[in-house]
């Protein structure tokens, strides 16, 4: 692996580490900032993705929509509280074309409700397109394709 490739992989891994920390520390306002202004965030069942069916669980098409989601999860969607814990695998760079990088990593999100055990909540992979803007990589698109055939009741916070 070339040094350049090593640094690129490390850079994406660091983005994922910060991404996981922001969500698990409930700094939801920081979450849209990982994306470019017209970035897409999609959470989609693997069943739909593999079959080319377009429906997603969450499909946001701009940072504005992501802010609307954050408002929803913090102000309007009533739900039982829970912690999340993200574990994200090292990234695999799939392609690079100028300032655009496509990459994939695997993730597991655990859920812990008050007074209860930790559960495997959502398991899948991130399929990412990243764009270098002013020297830093931002997500043009993050598609979370999850294996989990049943959502454990509801999915409120981003994964």
């Amino acid at each position, binding site marked *: 692996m070339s040094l350049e490739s090593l640094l690129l992989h490390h850079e994406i891994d660091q983005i994922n580490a910060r991404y996981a920390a922001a969500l698990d520390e409930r700094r939801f306002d920081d979450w849209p900032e990982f994306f470019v202004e017209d970035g897409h965030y999609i*959470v989609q*069942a693997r*069943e*739909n993705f*593999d*079959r*080319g*069916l*377009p*429906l*997603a*669980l*969450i*499909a*946001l*098409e*701009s*940072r*504005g*929509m992501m*802010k*609307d989601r954050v*408002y*929803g999860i913090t*102000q*309007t*969607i*009533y*739900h*039982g509280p829970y912690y999340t814990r993200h574990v994200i695998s090292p990234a695999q760079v799939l392609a690079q074309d100028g300032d655009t990088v496509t990459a994939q990593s695997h993730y597991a999100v655990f859920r812990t409700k008050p007074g209860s055990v930790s559960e495997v909540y959502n398991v899948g992979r991130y399929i990412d397109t990243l764009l270098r803007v002013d020297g830093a990589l931002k997500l043009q698109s993050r598609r979370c394709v999850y294996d989990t*055939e*049943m*959502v*454990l*009741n*509801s*999915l*409120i916070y981003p994964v």
Partner: protein
Amino acid sequence: MNAPQPLSRWPGEGSSRVPFWAYTDAQVYQRELDTLFYGKHWCYVGLAVEIPNVGDYRLTWVGERQVIMVRDRVAPKDRATDPGIRVVENRCAHRGARFCQSAMDGKVSNTRSFVCPYHQWTYKLNGDLAALPFKDGVKATGPEGDCVHGGMPADFDLKNHGLTKLRVAVLHGLVFATFSDDTEPLEDYLGPNVMPWLDRIFKRPEGSAPLTLLGYNRQRIPGNWKLMMENIKDPYHPGLLHTWFVTFGLWRADQKSRMVMDEHGRHAVMVSRRNDGGENKAVTEGVTSFKASMTVNDPRLLDVVPEPWWTISDPSDPGQTITPTVTMITLFPSLILQQQVNSLSTRHIVPRGNGEFDFVWTHFGFADDTPEMTQRRLRQANLFGPAGFVSADDGEVIEFSQDGFQQWASDGQDTGSTLCELGGTGTEMTEHMVTETLIRSMYAYWKKVMAV
């Protein structure tokens, strides 16, 4: 039906107080499976568009029994009368294995026949047993000359050993099945009050178009299955629990609404028309979920475009038209059919014990939708489903409800009940939504057929 065990007895008259044991008692639940899901009721199993080609199948559920919905071969002469969809139980007639599996390879599951891997009993797509190994035994040569070892008894008849076949009815591409020979025809089962609201969506004045499958969302909700039926028969909560609905006027106590039921009170349609949102003091005062200053950063989430089929001749006021923006149709016991502005879906209730059910959302559109309309339906799907702005919290409050019922049942007395008396204790249809009449009506039917 066995004589009722001395289960818990329904407390008092009427159906406005639903005892907690209706949600927590395992014996009551078993009777629900026998009477409602496996008895004289039509249960939703899927959409015909999910299995477009001969041999396509999908595993689905009637109650806790897994069934296979499959598209069979149909002779040309029968095509006018036979939609070709069969529903058979996924249980081998030999040793009872639930043998049929989904492909999980990114394709619609497809097969020429169903073969149980254990002993290779082979069934036609309609569930008939076609063949089995060693039926006529195995030829051998022994000291006495040629003979046959084993084989099935002489009176074994393939015809008597097929998969369990359910009766099937297909209405507007919705597939229903029943285990009972005595269930009335589907259109009679749904009744003349409900049918116009199904026709409205699927038999449009501009001509019906085939459906397109947009995809699935699935969730497992730790609550009794009836709580989801109640949730969609409850027009009281959306303008309170769901901030989006009240703030953007999608569903609010002051809008023009109608509560429709079949003659038994088991099926219902909540019909309503969106108003412009904003503040009407009479309905927003004291409603803490109303947020006067709330706006969306990206208005595409609420990009609603009326469709021609929304307007129909008013079924209860001939000569007048009616243009609802939302119809929530509950078809007892297992289907909720949603039109919320441009978002269309079926929601299938699959019970798993008295305290849990799976909820399967199948979103669809029409084959003649423009790409923009398809995009709109997909975008509005953000409001619904397990993560939806106005649906995720339904699953959450159902969990809270079940927790509360279980807690009450733990005292061993089991005397508590819910209270559903908004709009009185009656079971009539109404021209407004400030009522729990649909819930009372469902339980009036439930306690009758359950004999509790």
